[in-house]
């Protein structure tokens, strides 16, 4: 199922919408806000994922749109090379000192990223409406869970490829479409009374959420960035099992529907496997064979951690403001 065309958020997304509907080109239009730039890049990447309703699929390789994408990506990569450096650098130094890769990778993922934890909020204090708002933000990613990382697959050596496929097979249901993680997510969303459509909540998505998704698409699509794509994937897995347990406890505390709890329960167990396979076999093995991939793999991991922290901070602020507005309206 393709995505719905999102509502424009500024001059560039307005121009892109026109272009996607077959009206004009966008070459000279500048984004007029971070929100506009993030949505624009999300729209351009979506042409590579599933495309949009009633938009020509050939636009995926339209040279003018690719040029717009390249400008936005250049800016995105520059910003995140900078933003994730303070996390990546200490780990990269430890690689240079010959320390054990798996050990330093797990340490990197345990680093304090300096913000409040979204899952602790859900575990202990969130109200149901706030959790539903969080699920709507998360749905931008979960309906295409793992997809961006699969662009890396044909670019890998055989051994790395085999380990990535072992992880992906589990994510994609081990041959059972019913067990696909994205399908478990849709069942959870339906049980919560939420829209299960692909990218159904894109108009609500915070710019930080769009950017987090854009980063995954960027790392997956560029062969040059494949080590970072796998570093990102491994960090994502490492940062999933324990937070999923907190989500389970929070959803149970609120008495939320079982299918959504089941989604997070599955991730407690699945990602406890994936993190070990990803760090020790997939990345650890690759780094041992090709030491030069280590630095970008660690940068990709740092991007994952820093982007999740930015998303968490933004989502927390948004759901708390939402609750305040609601309570204010009642008062």
């Amino acid at each position, binding site marked *: 199922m393709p995505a719905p065309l999102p509502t424009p958020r500024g001059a560039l997304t307005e121009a892109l919408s026109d272009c996607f509907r077959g009206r004009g080109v966008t070459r000279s239009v500048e984004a007029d806000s971070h929100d506009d730039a993030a949505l624009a890049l999300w729209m351009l990447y979506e042409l590579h994922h599933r495309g949009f309703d009633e938009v020509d699929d050939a636009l995926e390789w339209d040279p003018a749109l690719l040029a717009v994408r390249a400008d936005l990506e250049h800016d995105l990569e520059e910003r995140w090379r900078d933003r994730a450096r303070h996390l990546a650098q200490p780990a990269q130094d430890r690689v240079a000192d010959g320390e054990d890769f798996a*050990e330093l990778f797990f340490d990197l993922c*345990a680093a304090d990223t300096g913000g409040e934890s979204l899952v602790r909020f859900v575990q202990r204090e969130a109200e149901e409406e706030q959790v539903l708002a969080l699920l709507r933000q998360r749905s931008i990613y979960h309906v295409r869970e793992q997809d961006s990382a699969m662009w890396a697959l044909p670019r890998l050596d055989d051994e790395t490829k085999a380990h990535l496929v072992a992880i992906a097979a589990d994510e994609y249901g081990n041959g059972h479409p019913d067990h696909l993680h994205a399908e478990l997510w849709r069942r959870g969303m339906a049980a919560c009374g939420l829209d299960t459509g692909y990218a159904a909540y894109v108009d609500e998505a915070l710019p930080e959420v769009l950017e987090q998704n854009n980063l995954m698409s960027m790392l997956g699509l560029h062969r040059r960035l494949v080590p970072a794509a796998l570093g990102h994937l491994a960090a994502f897995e490492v940062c999933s*099992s*324990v937070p999923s347990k907190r989500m389970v406890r929070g959803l149970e505390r609120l008495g939320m529907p079982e299918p959504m709890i089941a989604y997070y329960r599955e991730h407690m*167990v699945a990602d406890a*496997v994936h993190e*070990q396979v990803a760090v020790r076999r997939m990345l650890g093995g690759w780094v041992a064979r090709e030491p030069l991939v280590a630095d970008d793999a660690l940068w990709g991991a740092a991007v994952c951690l820093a982007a999740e922290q930015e998303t968490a901070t933004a989502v927390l602020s948004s759901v708390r403001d939402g609750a305040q507005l609601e309570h204010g309206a009642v008062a």
Partner: protein
Amino acid sequence: MSTGETTTREVLLCPDGPVLIPGPVTVEDEQGVKHHSERPVVAVCRCGASSVPPWCDGSHKQVRRRPATAVPSPRHGRELEDY
């Protein structure tokens, strides 16, 4: 297709973590209860802290993780309080 050779299955003991075993597999726990998994690889808990035994749920990171640097992160102390 049989090659006539015995297949050796590789099991990985993860430092400070679970044991990785190729699946599908049935694990019989200390009470004699059998737990089946169809996953290509399973992670069996070794730290005793999992909330979903016999499978690993990442809890070893909260109870067993050795600090890699001389100064332990206070984060680990906080994590312990929750469990």
